[in-house]
């Protein structure tokens, strides 16, 4: 399974290197990847249907419990099939949609990267690997949304999406750390076992708030929903992929995956019901006021996501079945509708629904696909959507509390979703063909076949629900619910309340569709609420943040080195003094002092004299030389207290520092007085405070008990394990060799920094010159 997950990443890296040489055959080759993966996952269906789970583990950082644990159960399965199956259609669609694009190779690279991250996300059993893949989906979707990187609006949307999902990811990580601490494991399957402990823990509330923070931002729930319509700036195949089946469903997946761990608690259920319900009603209303096809689809997608969150919130077995079915239903019809919109946009050059009409004459396969998708979306009998809608009503009717309100909200949303689906799937194709569109050509087979296939799929599963109920839906519900489930989906349930509600929904939806028309006036009317929308408020906050950081940077990083040192040292003094005088009993143990020897006295006097010279001299060179003397005196002290390695290093470093100073100062103009008496006194007080504090701490440390474990470990093992007698060096090159490796890397970076800062001169035209 590791190979399956990594294949997306490997392809992406290969494309980065050799993509440009494969221009012609590229799309064909890359499209094979999701297809192969799709069949790879398909072969597990029988065993997963029997209730088996596949598990494979690869060590990554076992000492911290972070491993590549992949776990394929019903829930992961349904997502894997969607990711690879719809992924394949998107890949071939994109190969035609973006044909001849300069950066086609780059596009497929991002797409493979994204697919790999999504697969990793749904297959990970480890909290932290899940998080890594979660972040990777955010990053790769940033590239995909901002693919038209020359368009400022596109860049802005990508940044907004990244900022929101990234912020959510941060919350999620915190939540995971908390969860691991409470549950005592980083494996999700093991955490299910300690679900009871987690639910009763006092940190349960903060924990679920953090997890919700991640899930709601990712799945665009109110009030974080606004990044999704903005993300419509992406090329249409990306919108179809990200918003029908994958990226935004990651939050849903997360909630579904953690239902057995965190669910079944009133906080969990009520929050999800309220947020999901609010989102679905609020955004479904929005679709009514839009004229851009993609915008309509975006808001109806958020509404569908809200519906899923809402169903997971209800949390009964019926609701979870409905959620599992609805995930599949929604992916099929929404991907289809997006792809159709993409073709319309591609061929006619507009997505404005008020201008489109009669396209069935020129784009007939898409008209069929659009109709199928819209019917499935509407839940007309014999489509898969009909089953999905029935299950939703069953779930809301049987919910324990306030069944009327929940059912009402679901009906309202479904009516508006039906309207949105008809607008996007049917309206562009009916009516009279306008002259300006009469020359529209049917695009390549690669572009109309995928939506048609998705539409037919919706119909097929609707007529033969037996294809999916036991094999896919049942294991998925099992993974969320835990109990035993027997699911058999039926086309016909008989005359009952659910059917009545279905009829009401369809009738109202059709009435709405036939009686009203999307128009620019309505959109304009809606825009008066823009200033109070969460979108606007967030942007204003971001602007404030920018102002604040500008002020902060200007006032603290003002370019004066002395000021930096002043700030750092005074902050350190404050911190140390606070800790020292509040937490520590100051007691200096005079009995531990050794007698002052003659050499120490001489060296100390020498140091004092040098300090005096450094501070008072008028010559720069003298000051540097006196500083060097101080350094050498410290070396001598090291020698007295048997630290020869330290003394040697200090000695050479001091020598080099003096040489460096002399090299630079030699060329500088004669001593200039930059300071006045006042600032000298201020600096003097600061240094005396700092020095005094450090001395106090050093004396205080003497009182602490010395832990000899570490030094005796190195002492005894240096020779036996590493065959070295110089313990210091053995630690440097062997026991803590990794640290040294990182240190020399840091040194290298410093050298590169100095070199490039001094050698790189930017001329007045702003061009770089070496």
């Amino acid at each position, binding site marked *: 399974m590791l190979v399956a997950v990594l294949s997306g990443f490997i392809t992406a890296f290969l494309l980065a290197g050799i993509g440009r040489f494969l221009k012609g055959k590229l799309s064909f080759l890359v499209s094979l990847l999701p297809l192969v993966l799709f069949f790879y996952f398909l072969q597990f269906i029988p065993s997963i249907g029997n209730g088996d789970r596949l598990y494979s583990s690869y060590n990554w950082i076992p000492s911290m419990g972070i491993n590549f644990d992949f776990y394929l159960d019903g829930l992961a399965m349904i997502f894997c099939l969607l990711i690879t199956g719809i992924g394949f259609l998107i890949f071939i669609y994109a190969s035609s949609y973006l044909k001849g694009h300069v950066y086609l190779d780059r596009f497929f690279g991002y797409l493979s990267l994204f697919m790999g991250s999504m697969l990793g996300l749904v297959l990970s059993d480890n909290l932290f690997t899940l998080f890594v893949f979660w972040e990777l989906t955010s990053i790769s979707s940033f590239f995909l949304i901002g693919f038209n990187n020359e368009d400022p609006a596109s860049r802005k949307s990508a940044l907004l999406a990244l900022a929101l999902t990234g912020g959510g990811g941060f919350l999620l990580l915190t939540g995971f750390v908390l969860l691991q601490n409470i549950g005592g494991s980083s494996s999700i399957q093991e955490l299910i076992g300690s679900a009871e402990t987690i639910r009763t823990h006092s940190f349960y509330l903060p924990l679920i708030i953090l997890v919700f923070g991640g899930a709601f931002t990712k799945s665009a729930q109110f009030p974080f929903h606004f990044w999704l319509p903005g993300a419509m700036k992406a090329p249409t195949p990306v919108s179809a992929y990200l918003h029908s089946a994958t990226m935004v469903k990651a939050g849903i997946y997360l909630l579904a995956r953690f239902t057995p761990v965190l669910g079944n608690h009133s906080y969990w259920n009520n929050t999800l019901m309220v947020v999901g319900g609010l989102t679905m009603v609020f955004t479904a209303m929005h679709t009514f006021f839009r004229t851009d096809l993609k915008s309509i689809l975006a808001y109806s997608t958020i509404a569908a996501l809200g519906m899923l969150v809402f169903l997971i919130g209800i949390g009964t077995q019926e609701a979870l079945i409905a959620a599992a079915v609805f995930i599949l239903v929604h992916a099929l019809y929404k991907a289809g509708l997006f792809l159709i919109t993409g073709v319309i946009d591609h061929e006619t050059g507009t997505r404005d629904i008020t201008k489109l009409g009669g396209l069935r004459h020129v784009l007939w396969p898409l008209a069929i696909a659009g109709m199928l998708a819209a019917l499935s979306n509407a839940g007309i009998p014999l489509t898969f959507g009909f089953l999905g809608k029935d299950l939703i009503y069953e779930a809301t009717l049987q919910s324990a509390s306030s069944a009327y309100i929940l059912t009402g909200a679901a009906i309202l949303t479904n009516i508006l979703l039906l309207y949105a689906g008809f607008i996007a799937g049917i309206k562009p194709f009916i009516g009279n063909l306008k002259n300006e569109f009469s020359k529209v050509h049917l695009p390549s087979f690669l572009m109309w076949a995928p939506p048609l296939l998705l539409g037919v799929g919706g119909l097929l599963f609707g007529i033969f629900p037996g294809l999916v109920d036991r094999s896919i839906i049942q294991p998925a519900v099992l993974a969320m619910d835990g109990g035993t489930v027997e699911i058999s989906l039926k086309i016909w349930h008989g005359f009952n309340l659910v059917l009545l509600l279905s009829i009401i929904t369809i009738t109202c939806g059709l009435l709405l569709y036939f009686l009203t028309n999307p128009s620019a006036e309505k959109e304009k009317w809606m825009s008066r609420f823009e200033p109070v929308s969460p979108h606007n408020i967030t942007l204003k906050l971001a602007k404030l943040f920018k102002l604040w950081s500008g002020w902060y940077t200007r006032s603290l990083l003002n370019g004066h080195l002395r000021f930096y040192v002043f700030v750092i040292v005074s902050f350190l003094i404050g911190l140390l003094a606070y800790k020292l005088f509040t937490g520590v009993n100051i007691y200096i143990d005079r009995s531990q002092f050794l007698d002052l020897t003659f050499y120490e006295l001489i060296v100390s006097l020498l140091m004092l004299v040098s300090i005096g010279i450094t501070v008072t001299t008028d010559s720069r060179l003298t000051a540097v030389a006196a500083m060097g003397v101080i350094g050498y005196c410290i070396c001598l002290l090291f020698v007295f207290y048997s630290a020869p390695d330290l003394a040697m290093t200090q000695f050479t470093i001091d020598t080099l520092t003096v040489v460096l100073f002399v090299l630079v100062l030699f060329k500088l103009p004669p001593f200039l007085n930059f300071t006045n008496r006042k600032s000298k006194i201020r600096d003097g007080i600061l240094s005396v405070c700092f020095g005094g504090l450090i001395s106090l701490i050093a004396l205080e440390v003497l009182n602490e008990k010395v832990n000899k474990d570490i030094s005796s470990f190195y002492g005894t093992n240096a020779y036996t394990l590493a065959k070295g007698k110089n313990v210091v060096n053995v630690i440097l090159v*062997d026991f803590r060799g990794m640290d040294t490796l990182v240190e020399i890397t840091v040194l290298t970076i410093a050298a590169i920094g100095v070199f490039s800062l001094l050698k790189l001169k930017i001329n007045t035209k702003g061009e770089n010159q070496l």
Partner: protein
Amino acid sequence: MKTIILKVASNYLLPLLLLFSVFILLRGHYEPGGGFVGGLIASIAFVLHAFANGLKTTQKFLKYHPGVAIPIGLGLSLFAGLLPMFAGLPFMKSLFFSQPLPVIGTISTALVFDIGVYLVVVGVTLTILFTISETVND
């Protein structure tokens, strides 16, 4: 600062100091010393030479830019760390030759690692010092 005494002395001191730095590097395993100090001493040798003879002379004498030593050193250290992984051992586990060689003693990956540190330190120190003094002299 081209005094004749320093100039002559530095010509003799350069090989001596370099030899001394290698000595410090090699003895590091048993006595005070090691790659870091060794590298610093070698840098001092070159800096002294540059001080007495002028930067240009030293750079001509070195032929290559001192920065070249950095990737070589980093590569050596990394290689020493990676080597045990080919034997199925964890990263950075030291390996030893079973028989000591004459004069040098037992060879281990730790020595290779330390030589890498030595080279990086020489490269970094000289790059920084030379770059700064070049810029100042411009």
